[in-house]
């Protein structure tokens, strides 16, 4: 009798283990593996995602196969629009900033970019960053970006339904460029007006935390620090504690 109970117990245990382990193998993470690629600023025109290098060139999104990293091979071109300026990868999507709007593309298994949706905006330069829930787009009216006047704002766009991006909020800025979001902390590089930092926990409502006196043009958000690009310096900002955001290093190397 004991032997039978033991056997039933063992079999149940074995079956249970099999069920749990097989479920685990079905889980596919959407987070991109950046260990082989690193990360770019939001003003980038190049982006490496997996085995593909994407390059935007004012009207097109060009795709190169870099399965063999030292042998890039041009694959195809997808026409996006006018004034295409920036590219921001997120999961298996590409967020493309152009002077007319934000274009969102899906990366198919073979690397081909496939159009999903777009959000049109007033003609301006626009870098974009996203955390998958909201896309943060800066619009800048400076002469180099807009030929007919324009606006200087930060737009918060709901992209939780990727097929249907919706503008939720607009915040006035002076002349913003790069933008970054990480752990609900939003960095907006408002150049001469400084580095503006917001708490985005209640996005689309943003709460200003502080403005640092840095001529910030672009930003790369790392885990707890951000690299901020100024015209001739790079600053590093620790944002691990939103009540004590501080600059930890600046670099202007004189040789």
């Amino acid at each position, binding site marked *: 009798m004991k032997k039978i109970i033991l056997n039933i117990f063992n079999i149940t245990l074995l079956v249970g283990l099999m069920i749990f382990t097989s479920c685990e193998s079905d889980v596919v993470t959407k987070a991109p593996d950046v260990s082989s*690629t690193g990360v770019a600023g939001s003003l*980038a025109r190049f982006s490496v995602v997996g085995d593909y290098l994407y*390059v935007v060139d004012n009207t097109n999104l060009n795709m190169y196969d*870099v399965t063999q990293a030292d042998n*890039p091979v041009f694959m195809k071109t997808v026409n996006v629009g006018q004034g295409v300026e920036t590219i921001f990868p997120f999961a298996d999507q590409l967020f493309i900033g152009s002077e007319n709007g934000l274009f969102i593309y899906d990366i198919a298994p073979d690397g081909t970019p496939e159009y999903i949706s777009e959000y049109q905006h007033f003609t301006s330069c626009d870098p974009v960053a996203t955390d998958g829930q909201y896309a943060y787009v800066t619009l800048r009216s400076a002469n180099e970006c807009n030929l007919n006047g324009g606006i200087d704002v930060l737009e918060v766009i709901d992209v939780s339904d990727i097929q249907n991006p919706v503008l939720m909020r607009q915040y006035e800025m002076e002349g913003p460029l790069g933008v970054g979001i990480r752990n609900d902390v939003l960095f907006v590089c408002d150049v001469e007006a400084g580095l503006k930092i917001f708490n985005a926990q209640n996005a689309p409502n943003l709460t200003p935390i502080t403005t640092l006196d840095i001529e910030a043009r672009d930003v790369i958000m790392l885990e707890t620090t951000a690299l901020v690009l*100024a015209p001739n310096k790079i600053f590093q900002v620790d944002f691990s504690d939103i009540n004590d955001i501080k600059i930890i290093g600046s670099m202007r190397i004189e040789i």
Partner: protein
Amino acid sequence: MKKLLFYCLILSLASSSCLPQEDDLVVMGLKPVYMNGDWKAITSMSPQPLQNLGKFYYKDEMIFVSETRQGIHIIDNTNPENPQNVKFIAIPGVLDIAIKNNILYADNFTDLVALNIADLENIEVVNRVENLYPEHQNYYPANFEGYFECVDPEKGVVIGWEEVELRNPQCRR
């Protein structure tokens, strides 16, 4: 008679090209800066000052930042309190950077170059793909509205633009 002579003089001067004509257009605009020499030459050298930074990229505690249209600074950020500017790679016309494994991709005017950066003391070009960007993008200043001096390809590749006073510029965007 003297008065007549005087008036004739003025008239002849006015009608000559010595004096500015009424319909001369003198305006501030951009003039192309040409690069002499081989624009495809990529050279690794000792660290250079950060002056006109463009785009940047981070991987494995290293920061790569472009010196607009000149090259890429490589900065060792292992200790963020004390980053070290360790190398400069001169790449004419460069703006953008991306990396996969030990291969760094950069634009070299209208070409895409792939550099092996596994050993910073021996950085080498391992591949080059032409026609990354349409050629014509070199012939006018990007993101600019105004007058500029037309590009003359005979003079070489355009490495940048400088703001100058132009007289009767033939090109405009």
